[in-house]
């Protein structure tokens, strides 16, 4: 079953409660999303680690039922 925007947001917020999460359905097909995640927990750590934290929050769905999630992560300015 495809995931909705609110499912993705909820999973990320559960793992990163301080995060500002924006999820966009790129193609309107419930299958290709873009997410921006801004969290204090990303400060000072490499991008690969930042993305791994988000992927971990998605609990194995990335690359599976969540086919395409373009990801941008950063710490707050």
């Amino acid at each position, binding site marked *: 079953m495809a995931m909705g925007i609110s499912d993705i947001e909820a999973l990320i917020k559960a793992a990163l409660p301080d995060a500002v999460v924006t999820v966009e359905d790129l193609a309107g097909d419930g299958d290709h999303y873009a997410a921006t995640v801004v969290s204090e927990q990303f400060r000072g750590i490499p*991008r*690969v680690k930042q*993305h791994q934290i988000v*992927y971990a929050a998605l609990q194995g769905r990335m*690359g*599976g039922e969540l086919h395409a999630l373009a990801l*941008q992560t950063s710490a707050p300015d």
Partner: protein
Amino acid sequence: MDNPVFDRIKTDIAANPVMLYMKGTAQFPQCGFSARVVQILTHLSVPFNTVNVLEEPEIREGIKQFSNWPTVPQLYVKGEFVGGSDIVTEMFQSGELQTLLTEKGVPHQPKE
């Protein structure tokens, strides 16, 4: 840990300074994300090798575990995991990718 797939990956990323695990080939990418990374490497005239994970199911699964990264493409420079298409794109746009290649001694030059 004894894992023949990991051994193969370790050998490949040690032998090839710039190694891209992708869907399809550099000439004929079969996924938009893989195509984007190929396009960036080609634009920078970086010599690179590829593994087509669609033809190698064991590598397709193994590479995800190897890097703790759930998706393909995956770019390795001098044996080090750099990222997937989002990170490579971001690094290219900010110039960090070019800096990394210089630091690692990989020849590159933007196409005119």
